[in-house]
């Protein structure tokens, strides 16, 4: 039985050679798996090793130190990030949800598939493009870099993410539920708000968490729109700092004490973003199992 040829034109190969090739290939697969995980391990290790010494009370309560002066912290960047991503969430969640509701509940025909296509295309917008676009519109119009411009630039990236992933979740809601509500005489909009959205609740929450995680980590759009700020700023029309932006600037400076702060910022960013992603994934797995 071992004289099966593996090529249409080649000569029969011995089973030993074929088995060896198969084993070698399996080894290569495992090698690829290990190779891909090495960077993850190294990044987490170095961020922890170099960042932990920077973490103390001052790191969270003080603002940017002058060059060469040790101490200081990133309080202004934490506040700025929270402010901008908060505003971006307020903008992009309603927009994303309405787009998703259109796509699942109303959308038929060409316009719906065109919208889905556009949402898909916008997912691949390079983040620097969102920055350049908002700079040429919002920053030029307002005449100044600002937290508002930063928030809008992040929303450009978050809107399609929330729209597409919420759409996926809404599709998991069984049609029986919709029909049951409609059969009771509930108007369509009320059926969507009271039946579809609550059923998909965890999934929508997951979609928002993923989008927030993405927004928190973005540097490029903020670079061109919010500019950064050494001092605490709570006025959304003024230049504002953000954690990734601060890490970017500190990492590229020649000042040793700033490098340490950059690693400290990286720990905080990594912990927040990774825990958001992990819990989002956990929630969505559970949700999908429940809806099946």
């Amino acid at each position, binding site marked *: 039985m071992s004289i099966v040829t593996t090529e249409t034109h080649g000569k029969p190969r011995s089973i030993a050679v074929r088995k060896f090739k198969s084993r070698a290939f399996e080894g290569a697969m495992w090698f690829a798996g290990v190779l891909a995980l090495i960077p993850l391990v190294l990044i987490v290790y170095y961020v922890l090793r*170099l960042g932990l010494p920077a973490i103390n009370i001052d790191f969270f309560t003080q603002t940017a130190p002058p060059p060469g002066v040790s101490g200081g912290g990133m309080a202004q960047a934490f506040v700025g990030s929270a402010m901008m991503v908060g505003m971006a969430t307020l903008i992009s969640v309603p927009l994303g949800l309405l787009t998703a509701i259109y796509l699942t509940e109303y959308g038929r025909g060409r316009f719906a598939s065109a919208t889905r296509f556009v949402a898909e295309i916008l997912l691949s917008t*390079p983040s620097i*493009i969102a920055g350049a676009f908002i700079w040429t*519109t919002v920053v030029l119009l307002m005449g100044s870099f600002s937290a508002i411009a930063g928030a809008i630039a992040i929303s450009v990236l978050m809107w399609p993410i929330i729209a597409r992933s919420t759409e996926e979740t809404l599709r998991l809601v069984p049609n029986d539920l919709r029909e049951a509500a409609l059969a009771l005489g509930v108007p369509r909009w009320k059926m969507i708000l009271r039946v579809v959205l609550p059923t998909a609740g965890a999934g929508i929450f997951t979609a928002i968490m993923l989008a927030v995680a993405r927004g928190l980590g973005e540097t490029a759009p903020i670079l061109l729109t919010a500019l950064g700020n050494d001092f605490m700023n709570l006025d959304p029309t003024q230049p504002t700092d953000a954690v990734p932006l601060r890490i970017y600037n500190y990492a590229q400076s020649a000042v040793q004490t700033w490098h340490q702060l950059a690693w400290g910022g990286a720990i905080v960013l990594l912990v927040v973003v990774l825990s958001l992603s992990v819990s989002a994934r956990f929630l969505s797995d559970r949700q999908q199992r429940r809806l099946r």
Partner: protein
Amino acid sequence: MTPAEAPVRRRLRFGDSLFKGSTIFVSFGLMGLLGAILFVLLYFSLPAWQKFGIWGFLSGTEWNGATDIYGGLPFIYGTLVTSFLAIVIALPISVGLALLINEVRSGWVRNPLTVLIDLLAAIPSVVYGLWGIYVMAPFLNDHIEPILGATLGKIPVVGALFQPTPSAGNMFNAGIILAIMIIPIITAVSREVIAIVPRDLREAALAMGATRWETIRMSVLPYARSGIVGATMLGLGRALGETVAVAMVIGNGLGMSASLFAPGYTIPSVIANEFREATAIGLHRPALLALALVLVVISFVLAAISRALVGGGFSVGLARTMPEEPLPDEEKVAE
């Protein structure tokens, strides 16, 4: 309908059309956003296109604020070189990884592996950049590049790619960091397209006495090929548009060297570095926006191609978290 019901019905209909109208309005807004991005970038970059011409701008190698002459070729070159290097490294690893996740039936390997690869995708690019400058680049410079230069650098034609230079920031670093960043996305999409290969095809090959590798090569890979190409496009799009991680490790040099160990510059990183300093006078800003337009058009075209090849939803992360039913062990099926 009795007269008493009429107002109620009208109110219901009003609520419905208001709600439906607002969802349609917002969907129009999403399309408007795409249109606005393209229009604004084109409109504000027009002065540069008019001055240098489309071909003149794309092929120009001089980028000089003092003479107000701008050509985009160094950035286009750097973007393409680093992205292709990233694909060359990431594609085999990602496909191997995707096959591993699909072939290994034990959940205790597969599930953690999937989660860990997704974590790699969630790391913010600035963290990659920080690690890239202070950990990865020095290691590559001191240990890997001399070895490559002494071995591959000696081969006649290909060797030009590996000529040593003293630069710490270079295109090789950028290609490696991009490869690490796009492995998760190519893996995730490839895993999906490999998972939907019909069982019949695998079983047919196994029933003919094919080994595992032969099954994969003859049944799985041909079936999944267009999907894997789509996954690669998605990864390529991500690599082309990556900004800060690349800007931090590439060395930001305008010379277009054949050697990967020389500094380079990419479209996103020049926009990040120079946009804020560009003044309203002269063509600096229009030239940067012209580069932005080139980048966004390439990204959108790649996204459209990959969507046509694999279908949508993959870059979100949710579409692929569906738990799959584990298949029975293939060896047992084959017996």
